[in-house]
């Protein structure tokens, strides 16, 4: 029940900001909503041990281990982003111009994200992801110029196209259900689909799976439909980039999870072929661009494409990589939120996104410098972060499955990305400071969420409490084709 209240709180917050447009109250509402939702999400995860899977709202919502994990993840990240926005408004009151509509849309976006995470109905999940797109689009060009406007338009077009193809895929899957003797009734309820004894492969099902994976791949910014992502992540305000990269991204990943939970037992070859191909192509695109990139925000955007590729390959490989994929997804969400918010602080101080213009950040902005360094290490998959262990588990599965070509290509590309990113970013962190050593005051609101993200990132790699480990294993089990 607490999970369902999570949906209502942001909507109520949005309504409050509409009724009472005082600046201070609006920004406090945002923060309060984020805090309450984190508490409710924690209560929901805690209840998992006693209650297991729950079905609410006429079976339209499902509260299982997977939805609880993603709910907790997105609420924590949203709290971090809210603190960042609060800090920015406190530090630079000029950014508060037109903030009411910004906060309202952010809360609607958050509510739609929670609805997508909790949805037990494939079509409604699709609708809620589309709703996150529609609420995020105006946020991308909030108080920004024509490039941001054009990026928002591109984002809207690509998202609509990708989600349109996904919808077509769902219709194909529905058509495919006609041909299963004894299970002809068409349903879009995830819990019912996972209980079906047989979803025998056929033309419609193959086509449906391919279209759904391709469509959600577009939403994740994977090749070949990746062109919107670098531009959008670069042009959007940093808080919005973090919303897209760490919250909306995970809603789309969860949708992929659900499809894989339902169809993996019957359609592993096609799932594997589509996801591995798209994943590898995405890593190639990311590697080629990271080598020549001159803009640090775009560099992290291309690293996001690389991450989407790694997740797709992990999901494509199948059961034994499931736990590694989950570790990687959690780390990836935290790293992206950490890095994009840090980029926001750096951009606010130096008004540049060009890598060559910045050096000695660790002296100019000690907190941001350290966060950037730690974030880049985690981004590159260094130990002891969760991304390292996630990547190792995925690579281990490649070896187990004797996918040597994939393994060699993956290692080679990851090495290229590793070297190119380090070569670009490390001179930004060390060296002579850009401002001649004038320290920038960084508020507690800016530092606290990032510290927390770093703590979880390290914890995912070094020490996971037994209860958290059991919880993650339960999610991995459902991803391997276990019942929801």
């Amino acid at each position, binding site marked *: 029940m607490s999970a369902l209240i999570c949906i209502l709180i942001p909507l109520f917050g949005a309504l409050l900001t509409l009724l009472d447009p005082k600046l201070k109250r609006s920004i406090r509402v945002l923060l309060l909503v984020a805090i309450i939702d984190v508490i409710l999400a924690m209560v929901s995860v805690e209840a998992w041990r006693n209650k297991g899977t729950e079905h609410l709202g006429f079976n*339209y919502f499902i509260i299982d281990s997977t939805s609880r994990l993603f709910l907790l993840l997105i609420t924590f990240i949203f709290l971090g982003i809210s603190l960042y*926005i609060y800090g*920015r*408004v406190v530090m*630079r009151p*000029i*950014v508060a111009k037109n*903030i009411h509509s*910004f906060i309202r849309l952010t809360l609607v976006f958050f509510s739609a994200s929670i609805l997508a995470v909790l949805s037990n*109905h494939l*079509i*409604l999940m699709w*609708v809620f992801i*589309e*709703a996150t797109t*529609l609420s995020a*689009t*105006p946020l991308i060009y*909030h*108080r*920004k*110029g*024509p490039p*941001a*406007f*054009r990026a*928002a*338009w591109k984002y*809207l*077009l690509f998202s*609509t*196209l990708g989600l*349109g193809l996904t*919808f*077509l895929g769902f*219709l194909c899957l*529905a*058509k495919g259900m006609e041909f299963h003797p004894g299970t002809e009734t*068409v349903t*879009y309820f995830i819990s019912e689909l996972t209980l079906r004894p047989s979803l025998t492969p056929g*033309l419609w099902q193959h086509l449906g799976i391919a279209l759904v994976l391709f469509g959600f791949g577009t939403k994740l910014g994977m090749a070949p439909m990746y062109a919107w992502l670098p531009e959008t992540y670069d042009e959007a*305000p*940093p*808080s*919005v980039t973090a919303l897209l990269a760490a919250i909306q991204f995970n809603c789309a990943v969860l949708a992929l999870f659900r499809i894989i939970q339902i169809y993996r037992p019957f359609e592993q070859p096609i799932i594997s072929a589509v996801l591995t191909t798209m994943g590898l192509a995405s890593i190639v695109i990311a590697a080629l661009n990271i080598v020549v990139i001159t803009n640090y925000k775009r560099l992290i955007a291309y690293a996001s494409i690389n991450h989407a590729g790694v997740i797709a390959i992990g999901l494509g490989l199948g059961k034994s990589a499931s736990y590694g994929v989950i570790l990687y997804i959690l780390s990836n969400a935290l790293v992206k939120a950490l890095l994009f918010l840090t980029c*926001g602080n750096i951009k*606010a101080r130096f*008004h540049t996104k060009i890598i060559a213009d910045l050096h000695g950040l660790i002296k100019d902005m000690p907190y941001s410098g350290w966060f950037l360094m730690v974030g880049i290490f985690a981004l590159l998959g260094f130990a002891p972060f969760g991304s390292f262990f996630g990547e190792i588990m995925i690579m281990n599965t490649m070896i187990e499955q004797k996918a040597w070509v994939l393994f060699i290509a993956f290692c080679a590309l990851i090495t290229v990305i590793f070297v190119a990113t380090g070569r670009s970013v490390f001179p930004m962190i060390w060296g002579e400071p850009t401002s001649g050593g004038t320290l920038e005051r960084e508020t507690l609101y800016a530092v606290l969420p990032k510290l927390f993200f770093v703590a979880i990132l390290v914890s995912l790699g070094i020490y996971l409490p037994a209860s958290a480990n059991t919880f993650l294993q339960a999610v991995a089990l459902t991803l391997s084709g276990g019942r929801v």
Partner: protein
Amino acid sequence: MTYLLIFFMLAMTLPLFVSSWRIALTGVGIQALLLGLILLRSDERSPSALLQAIDLIVVRGALIPLYLMVIVRKFLPKDQSLDLIPPNLILWTGAITLINLGFWFGQFVFPNDLSNLLFLGTASAAVLIGLFILSNQKIPIGQVIGILVLEAGIVLFELMTNHPLDLPAQAAVSLIFLLLTLVFGLFLKRFPAIEKQEQSNTWVAEEREVL
């Protein structure tokens, strides 16, 4: 049913060869109206089907094309040409090939069922033509028309599958489509101002301080 599908094909194909944004938007509206008629001619009489019929005939068939026309009229003169695909023989051949490809797919799936063959062939052709328009368009209103043609193909496919969504899902899908079109409209309204800003460069200073 067959003649409705033939009219649908005509409403989709003719605007490709006529350089007019008004005809293109009218074509999109007629496609939606025909989809509504196809739905009404089927045996489906559930509340969900009724809602979808209203959505197709009233919202997609009339309100959305009118709404877009009102917006576009403000910055594009009536006689301004708009080519959905560049007018040359190669791309026209490409469009006809895609329509053939759609029907080839219909024949491949339903070799002995003419009704379903036509349904699937027309739906596939609409999806492919929508993608073709999108890949050839740089003008925002042209891109929106590409999306609307693609969506019409998807709805036709949905009607062919004959598995109506349950009422909450249908209501949500109709609502989200309406919101999507409103957002498209908001963007189309702002594009002329954005182009002016691009020429004058007045936005640079404000862009420095963002959230």
